């Protein structure tokens, strides 16, 4: 194993926590770190979603780094509240504040007490999210954020409201819309924890609202305890929150990433099982349309050697779908190393499993395995010259910004599967032609 990382497969934790926070209505992520820790992720959101992202930073300087970031954090919380009037603040730590060793919870508590004393009213929820950049990756940050939200905000309930909690993970607005579409067809009411489908895909209508419309309200997060169950779509980015909800409130919990036919089947069946709702014919029809799309392209896809790189749950989902399309998964690579990924990957593929390796390794492996088609994001494309290597390329994951609109479309569910199937087939056509 090399010491040096060449072309990283992962980002650090804070951006995942920002992603999760920005799915809550009128929430402000407050980064406790240096200015770059906010500016850089902001730019990545801008590039991927082509949307603004408003993120505050405590702007720790040299003094704070020696004497602690207490004063900066207190001032920041007060300034964010007075100038933005948000409904929630997520205080997101960084390698800097974690290494300084600030007692962030203590400082937050103290600030809340002080404001409440002066203002004589309750302060909005301020949730501390620990995201040391030197542990895990962006999805760990998302996982930690969601766990912090449900732990901090969920309230004991009198009786179940029969809603279903869905924890999406770092997926796209288009994916969330696919999930909502299926839940609507099933007649299931739900809470998406947290929901970026409108906050990161907002319309232009003047006057611009102070915060983007949409997102999960704080009240919805507070009430998530009363749900009949929780499903995390990406276990690595949301699984900890699901585990907490199951442990504390006894709700049923499952983790399914509905990409491809069988995973979507399992997703629908699990929901039907938890909510006791019948599966409507409309969903059968959507399934049938996906099968139709797959039949249309099987001559193109069958036998193609696929290399798949994404966050672990997404990678496993795409790999299963690739197998359903008759492809051979020769490389299956996760952005972030995990035992769960390793075990699941071995079930799906006899090929090379890369568990958190960098993209320099991935490139070598893709060449060694002579892959025909590669799945990955924009940085993956930058690392691997698919044109030079004569490999078809399908964009997926985060970030994708070298093409327009990827975030708008979902690859999850039956309907999203049609889109993914088309993407795959068109990538093959573009690279190899009709008879390739």
């Amino acid at each position, binding site marked *: 194993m090399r010491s040096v990382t060449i072309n990283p497969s992962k980002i650090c934790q804070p951006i995942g926590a920002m992603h999760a926070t920005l799915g809550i209505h009128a929430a402000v992520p407050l980064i406790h770190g240096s200015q770059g820790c906010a500016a850089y992720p902001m730019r990545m959101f801008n590039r991927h979603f082509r949307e603004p992202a408003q993120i505050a930073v405590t*702007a720790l300087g040299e003094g704070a780094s020696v004497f602690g970031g207490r004063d900066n954090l207190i001032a920041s919380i*007060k300034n964010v509240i007075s100038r933005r009037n948000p409904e929630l603040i997520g205080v997101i730590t960084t390698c800097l504040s974690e290494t300084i060793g600030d007692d962030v919870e203590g400082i937050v508590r103290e600030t809340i007490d002080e404001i409440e004393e002066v203002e004589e009213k309750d302060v909005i929820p301020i949730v501390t999210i620990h995201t040391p950049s030197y542990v895990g990756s962006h999805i760990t940050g998302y996982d930690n954020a969601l766990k912090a939200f449900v732990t901090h905000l969920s309230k004991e309930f009198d009786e179940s409201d029969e809603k279903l909690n869905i924890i999406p993970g770092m997926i796209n607005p288009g994916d969330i819309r696919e999930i909502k579409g299926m839940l609507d067809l099933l007649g299931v009411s739900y809470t998406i924890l947290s929901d970026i489908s409108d906050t990161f895909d907002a319309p232009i209508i*003047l006057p611009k609202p102070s915060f983007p419309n949409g997102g999960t309200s704080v009240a919805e997060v507070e009430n998530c305890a009363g749900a009949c169950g929780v499903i995390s779509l990406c276990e690595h980015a949301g699984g900890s929150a699901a585990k907490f909800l199951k442990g504390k409130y006894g709700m049923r919990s499952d983790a399914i990433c509905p990409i491809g036919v069988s995973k979507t089947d399992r997703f629908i069946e699990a929901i039907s099982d938890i909510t006791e709702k019948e599966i409507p014919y409309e969903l059968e029809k959507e399934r049938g349309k996906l099968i139709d799309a797959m039949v249309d392209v099987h001559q193109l896809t069958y036998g193609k050697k696929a290399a798949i790189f994404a966050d672990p749950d997404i990678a496993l989902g795409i790999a299963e779908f690739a197998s359903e399309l008759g492809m051979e998964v020769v490389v299956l690579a996760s952005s972030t190393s995990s035992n769960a990924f390793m075990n699941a990957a071995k079930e799906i593929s006899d090929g090379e499993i890369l568990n958190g390796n960098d993209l320099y390794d991935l490139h070598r492996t893709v060449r060694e395995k002579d892959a025909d088609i590669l799945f990955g994001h924009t940085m993956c494309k930058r690392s691997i010259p698919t044109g030079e290597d004569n490999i078809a390329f399908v964009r997926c994951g985060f970030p994708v910004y070298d093409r327009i609109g990827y975030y708008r479309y979902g690859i999850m569910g039956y309907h999203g599967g049609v889109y993914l199937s088309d993407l795959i087939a068109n990538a093959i056509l573009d690279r190899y032609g009709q008879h390739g």
Partner: protein
Amino acid sequence: MPLTLLNCDRSIPERKKHTYIKDSTEEVLPLCDIQTTPGDFTERGCTYAGCLGVVCGPIKDVIHLVHGPIGCSYWTWGGGTRQNLSDNPSFHRKYCFSTDMQEKNIIFGGEEKLYDSIIEAHEEFPEAKGVFVYATCAIGLIGDDIEAVCKQAEEEIGIKVVGFNCEGFRGCSQSLGHHIANDALFERVVGTKEPEYTTDYDMNIIGDYNIQGDLWLMEPLFERMGIRILSAFTGNSSIDDIAQAHRAKLNLMHCQRSTPYICEQIKEKYGIPYIRASLFGIEQTSNALRDVAAFFGLEEKAEEIIADEVSKVAPKIEEYREKFRGKRIFIYQGAPRAWHWVEMFREIGIETIAAATTFGHEEDYAKICERVKDGTIVIDNPNSIELEEILTELKPDIFISGLKEKYLAYKLGIPFINGHSYEKGPYAVYSGFLNFARDVEKSIFAPVWGMIRRRDAKRND
């Protein structure tokens, strides 16, 4: 009092000192180059961004190794959003190197990991001519001695290994990072190599980063005059170019915020004078060519080139000027472009009604204030809430800024052009000016702006 407090700043009154409405009867400069108000939604970046992201990143044949947790390296990969192009794309901007510090390295120190990483990176890319090591926040706190590690590694691999103590928390903006980069490059690289030959017409262009190929438009103009560009700092440059920069006869300083340090140092140590230039727009470019020509005694040749170039672009620029007449712009840039571009916009008939910089110093604000009319708002380190207030209140016809502000402007229905990494550049000198004006036209006159609807207040549920 021409200093003003925006409505959104009522709870942070210290911002008043940063917000000046130009008044020639009461000239003050907005307060600048100080720590950001915590939690004010600043658009600033960090010292690391100024060092690697701006100054060092364009150097095309060294391994840029980021020492720290993974994120910092990821953000500057390929220049981040910056389009600092080079002619070595199969290496430069393609690869990203990091020590990917883990918790145990933070606890027990990362020197060994750094050393191994330098050696391994060199083994993978033996053709790289140097290794630049950038310290990030956590490294500054745990106290890794990167200087010592770099020295040891340099002895081992036999190419330059240069450390940069550019931890993000140092300084108050990207600006200190520029300075740190200048100092280290001057100390460790400049003067370490002699050019194959020298001429009486050798010049360096200092402070141009070849954004979308700006430099590739500048260089030929000087070359036609008979000048040899010995070294560009740092657009499309090799570490060897920087190493021989001390043998030029003149330094032409373009970005006057990120490079005055090295120009001064070179002047002091090697006696090379420098002149400041704006290579944007017709008049400023012509002035720069004249200044350089006067230094080298090439006036006649310069006038020929100017006449030729101007004749090629002037008619088209005149058309744009007619088309844009009366339009108003808000310019928000890192620092010097805010004042470089006031003039450039004036040449196409667009008046500046607001100007701001992320990390400008007093010098930059003095230049902005010299160039704008009374009543123009000049604001230092504007945060996103202030930007929204200014854009909403002043309703400029166009806003020029960077990616972080782009989609805010769009959501407010305000035409926008990216001045950091450009829309479709290059934008420098004469031919780039045409690209620039074309992109301004596209932004202002796109039909889509006319289709935006206002929502009936009564329906506001």
